[in-house]
């Protein structure tokens, strides 16, 4: 901790910090989650905050942004101690926050959200035309194409995240706090965001930046403060650390290889899940491929490629047509329950909107999907508690007390809980949609090894991910989709970033590669 002062003086620009947090502590009820942390930001720099899930990063940012009042310590802005009554007061002082959890109003349009609380007036009316124009321009600079009159409810998570970013930068911002902004973004969008951040810092904006993606921190940040279990480990110049150093300081020990050694799929493994000419109206067209037993099948694609909707269609969450076979037998799942009974489980990419009951307890959330195992006919709360303890252990859910609502978990720990909930149904085919979203490196590694264990036990996995390294590290084969269609299936030596990107952007295109079923398709209407 004594290292903090010299570090901040040694900041790149040598300017005085615009904001200093001294000895910031935060407690929720009896549990203190942040212990006397010091932090400062200098205009024009990107100061990253790094730490495991539940280390207190979001909490620290929320203290700065006026969403929580620290239980001890003070915030000094421009040399003056300040007490923000609420986020509005902080925003008035130029501190703007992009939340880890989306903070848009679902029933308002994109434009209405961007300007909420800061409407422009003409003759007492909202000048919506001018606001729409500005929103369009803002989104254009973010290279995001969404209709500004659409309701946020109808946007995909990544689109909503871009709107959230647009909203933040539309404000008069001096200090921008970003909590895992790239969590739901893909590579291209992340690039766009980084360009924007560079513009802002050039204009003297200070940025506090939370992310689990160490390479991103390496790219964009100047300094990094590392937290562990609510304590500050230290503040460092990013240039002085490699990603491995960061990970080690964060986790407190060396991380061995991120990915388990790939075991080949047994020769002649039976296909367990076959998609044949599956169409999800509006999202996916004529998709065919097969998942073999004991295989990790990766699914790559850019935003809007339709991977999510494809599998939502397959398991009965949306209308879909075409043929699906499970273990060789034709199935038609009209409802996720049918798929569950067939041993197929799908992990949603939208944990807040579709994954967790944020106001309900951890136990209720954990057992919701496999409740028949805990209720025959009466819910066996003791058994549920035992399951919760086991899940917390197995998935390393970090939380001080087990009787809090799910919404009180840190983002990454929420994700672990959703995963634990899914696995309680003991599926033999798991479809994981962005499973490591918001998960720290240490835990990511655990999840990768967990997947390897599943495979070893004969479970098959579909891995939908926007992180290519993850796909390359885990998958046996990768299906690349673009615009709702399969553009190619890569395996072996073809499994590299260039090839996949070529397919994903539509530069390359293979004919459908499931000829075995071709005559069947012709036979059917």
């Amino acid at each position, binding site marked *: 901790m004594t290292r903090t002062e010299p570090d901040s003086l040694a900041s790149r620009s040598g300017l005085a910090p615009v904001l200093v947090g001294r000895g910031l502590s935060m407690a929720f009820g009896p549990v203190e989650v942040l212990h006397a942390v010091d932090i400062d930001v200098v205009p024009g720099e990107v100061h990253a905050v790094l730490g495991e899930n539940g280390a207190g990063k979001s909490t620290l940012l929320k203290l700065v942004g006026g*969403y929580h009042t620290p239980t001890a310590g003070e915030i000094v802005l421009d040399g003056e101690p300040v007490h923000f009554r*609420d*986020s*509005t007061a902080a*925003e008035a002082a130029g501190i703007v926050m992009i939340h880890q959890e989306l*903070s*848009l*109003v*679902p*029933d*308002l349009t994109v434009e*209405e959200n961007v300007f*909420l*609380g800061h*409407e422009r*007036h003409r003759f*007492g*009316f*909202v000048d*919506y035309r001018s606001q729409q124009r500005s929103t369009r321009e803002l989104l254009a600079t973010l290279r995001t194409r969404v209709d500004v009159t659409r*309701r946020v409810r109808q946007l995909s998570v990544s689109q909503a995240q871009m709107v959230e970013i647009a909203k933040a930068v539309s404000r008069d911002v001096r200090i921008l706090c970003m909590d895992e902004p790239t969590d739901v973004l893909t590579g291209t969008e992340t690039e766009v965001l980084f360009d924007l951040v560079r513009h802002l810092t050039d204009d003297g904006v200070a940025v506090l930046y939370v992310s689990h993606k160490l390479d991103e921190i390496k790219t964009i940040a100047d300094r990094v403060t590392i937290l562990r279990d609510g304590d500050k480990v230290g503040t460092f110049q990013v240039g002085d650390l490699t990603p491995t150093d960061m990970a080690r300081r964060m986790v407190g020990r060396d991380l061995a290889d991120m990915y388990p050694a790939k075991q080949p799929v047994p020769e002649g493994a039976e296909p367990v899940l076959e998609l044949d000419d599956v*169409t999800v109206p509006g999202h996916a*067209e004529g998709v065919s491929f097969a998942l073999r037993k004991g295989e990790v099948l990766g699914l790559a694609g850019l935003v809007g490629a339709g991977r999510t909707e494809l599998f939502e269609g397959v398991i009965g969450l949306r209308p879909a*047509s075409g043929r699906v076979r499970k273990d060789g037998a034709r199935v038609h799942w009209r409802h996720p329950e049918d798929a569950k009974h067939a041993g197929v489980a799908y992990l949603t990419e939208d944990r807040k909107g579709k994954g967790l009951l944020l106001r309900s307890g951890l136990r209720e959330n954990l057992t919701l999907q496999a409740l028949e195992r805990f209720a025959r006919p009466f819910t066996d709360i003791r058994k549920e508690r035992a399951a919760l303890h086991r899940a917390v252990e197995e998935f390393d859910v970090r939380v001080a007390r087990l009787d809090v609502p799910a919404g009180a978990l840190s983002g990454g720990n929420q994700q672990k809980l959703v995963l634990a909930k899914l696995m309680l149904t003991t599926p033999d085919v798991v479809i994981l949609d962005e499973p490591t979203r918001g998960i720290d490196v240490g835990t990511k590694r655990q999840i990768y090894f967990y997947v390897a264990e599943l495979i070893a036990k004969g479970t098959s996995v579909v891995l939908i991910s926007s992180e290519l390294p993850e796909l390359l590290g885990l998958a046996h084969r990768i299906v690349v989709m673009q615009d709702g269609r399969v553009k190619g299936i890569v395996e072996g030596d073809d499994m590299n970033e260039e090839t996949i990107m070529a397919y994903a952007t539509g530069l390359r295109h293979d004919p459908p590669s499931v000829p075995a079923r071709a005559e069947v398709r012709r036979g059917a*209407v």
Partner: protein
Amino acid sequence: MARSEAAPAPTWRRHMRSIPWQSLTPLLGLVFLLIIGSLLHPAFLTPTNLLNVLTRSAFIGIIAVGGTFVIIAGGIDLSVGSMAAFLAGAMILVMNALARNDLEPLTIILLGVGMVLVAGLLAGAANGLAITRGRIEAFIVTLGTLGIFRSLVTYLADGGTISLDFAIRGVYRPVYFGSFLGIPYPVWVFAAVAIIGAIVLHRTRFGRYVRAIGSNQEVARYASVRVERIRTLTFVIQGVCVAIAVILYVPRLGSASGSTGILWELEAIAAVIIGGTALKGGSGHIWGTVVGAIMLSFIGNVLNLTTAISEYLNGAVQGLIIIGAVFLQRGRSGR
């Protein structure tokens, strides 16, 4: 299936989608009613009848415009019917008292109108403040004030009826029965209230905040929206709308009693929900509410067209028509 059609479909579909069906579907129910009505009786489509029905729908319609704000912001107001009775009673008593002081009828009416607007505003504010300051659910507070207002009017009327002085009545009567350009005044007022309401809801900061609060109160609060104040204001708007409805109601029947406005709250809320506003709040529009209110009036009117149905079964037919009409427009209500 039907693969052959798949290719051209997207463009066609996209084209269809660009038409704002959403805002048209509420009309389907109304069209359905108009068709039924004209089949049942030739006199149904006469201007007199149509104007009669439109004029009637003005009371509930105006109240429902206010209710749209309340419901979109996530509240509910059960007290509107008895508030209307109370305001009508108070207005008549004030006007009668003034009449005894030898004032001009017109002055008296203007004073009465002013008084009732202020009283409506205060009554709405009382509801709103009890809900936001007292942190009690809107359902409970307005259930309570339902009883309170109804009792007060009964008390004022001494259990009977409060009647407007006949001298004033003559001057005031045209406000309901008169017309301008062939359209009765209440219809004009209804249209004006609806247009103002729509502008406020869709084109002002306040309207956006109302929708934001109903959709996600926490996010709204973070966006520096004064949630409590806005919610209170929705009830104030509701109160003023009730007052406007009363101003039109009093010249029609010239009296108020403990049974005035009974179950108007149900009709007003029904108009709002039929119009496509979600009972949970967040989204909705005035336009739908207007259609909903008119639809409800037409249902009553259509039932008077035929003698085929036992009058005991009126309510059943009414119920079936409501469900059927909303079913037709379910595209937008979904959930």
